[in-house]
C-alpha cells in the first residue's frame, strides 16, 4: 500500500533563574533561557525525510520487552503499521520513550543487548528512563552517510526495554524509513 508521511517536532526548554542580590530590593535580577527548536520531516527516505511510524503504549515487565526493527516485531510477534502493512525500518529518524510511572524505582532500562540499535556504544550500555522521564532522539540525517541509526537485521536492530521494578507504562514512538 502506497503511503506518505509528514512529521513535525517542537521542543522547548525554558529556565528562569533568579537571584537575590543584597541592595536590590526594588528589582529581581533574572536570567531566562528559552531554547525552542522546530523541525519537520517530509515524506521520503532522504535527509530530513521519513516515511513510516510505529507508536504504542504498553507496560514493561521486569522480564523485558524486545522490539525488533527489521522487520518490526514485539517479543517475536510481528507488528504492522496502522494500515496493516509490515514495517521494516532501515533508518531511524526519531525515537521517543516516555515513562508514565510516578512510582519511585519503576525505571525502564533501554538498550543493553548486543543487537541494540545504534544509540550508545557498548553492548551492555543502557540508559534508564526514570519515572516521569523522557528519552528523545532526533536524527534527521541520511542513513547512507551514517547520519542516523541504520538498523540491520540480526545485527543492530533491537530496542530492549526492561523494568527496574513493577510494570511502568510507557509510550514509544519510532519514526524512520524503510
Amino acid at each position, binding site marked *: 500500500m502506497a*503511503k506518505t508521511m509528514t512529521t513535525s517536532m517542537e521542543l*522547548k526548554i525554558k*529556565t528562569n533563574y533568579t537571584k537575590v542580590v543584597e541592595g536590590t530590593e526594588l528589582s529581581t535580577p533574572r536570567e531566562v533561557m528559552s531554547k525552542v527548536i522546530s523541525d519537520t520531516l517530509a515524506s521520503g527516505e532522504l535527509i530530513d525525510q521519513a516515511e513510516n*511510524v510505529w507508536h504504542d503504549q504498553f507496560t514493561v515487565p521486569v522480564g523485558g520487552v524486545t522490539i525488533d526493527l527489521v522487520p518490526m516485531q514485539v517479543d517475536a510477534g510481528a507488528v504492522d503499521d496502522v*494500515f496493516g502493512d509490515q514495517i521494516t525500518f532501515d533508518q531511524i529518524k526519531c525515537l521517543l520513550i516516555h515513562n508514565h510511572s510516578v512510582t519511585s524505582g519503576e525505571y525502564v532500562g533501554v538498550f543493553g543487548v548486543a543487537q541494540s540499535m545504534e544509540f550508545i*556504544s557498548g553492548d551492555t550500555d543502557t540508559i534508564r528512563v*526514570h519515572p516521569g522521564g523522557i528519552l528523545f532522539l532526533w536524527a534527521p540525517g541520511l542513513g547512507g552517510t551514517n547520519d542516523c541509526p541504520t538498523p540491520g537485521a540480526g545485527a543492530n536492530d533491537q530496542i530492549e526495554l526492561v523494568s527496574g521494578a513493577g510494570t511502568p507504562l510507557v509510550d514509544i514512538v519510532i*519514526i524512520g524509513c524503510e
Partner: protein
Amino acid sequence: MATSLASSLTVILKTTLKSTGVDLSVPEDVMTKAITDILADGVALDQADVVYHDKATLNNNTRTIDVHTSATEEDPWGLAITMAKIKCVFLHNLNTAAGEYIELGGVANAPVVFTSSAPAAEFPIHTVHPGGILLVWNPSLAGWAVANNTGDVLELDTTGSGASVDYEIVIIGTST
C-alpha cells in the same frame, strides 16, 4: 547569593501517515504525542536548582564539562557549577553537513546518565548526528547522581568526525 530556578519542558511530536491507494478517500492516521513537564525550585522530586547552558564550537577536539565543583564552568550568574544530581541533559548539533557528528560520553568519570555493566572497561558514548538532538529528562528524586571526581564529567568529542561542530548544551540539576 540566593538563587531560584524554574524549569519547563515541552515536546510535541506529530506524524500524519496517509494511504494513497484508495480512490475515493484518503485514510490517514494522525499521531500527536505532547509532553509538558516542569521542575520547581529545589532538590527533590520534580525540582531542580542549578542550570548550565552554553553554545560553542568544538573543532576536532574534546571538551570536558565538570558539573561538580567546577573550576571552569559557571552558571549564568558567574557562580561555579556544583551539581549533585542531574535532571536534564540536552544536546543539539547545529551542523547540517553529512558526517559532522559530536559525541557525548566516553570517559570513566562520567555521571551515570548512561550506564554500563562493565564500567571499568566500557564508557558509554552517544553520537548526536548533524541536525540531531539528544534530550534525556529525569525528574525523579534521585536524578542521575553526580560524584565528585569519579562521576562528574560530561565529555564532548568531535575528534571522531574530525569536524568543527557548533552545538548547544543545557544541563539542569540540583545542588545537593
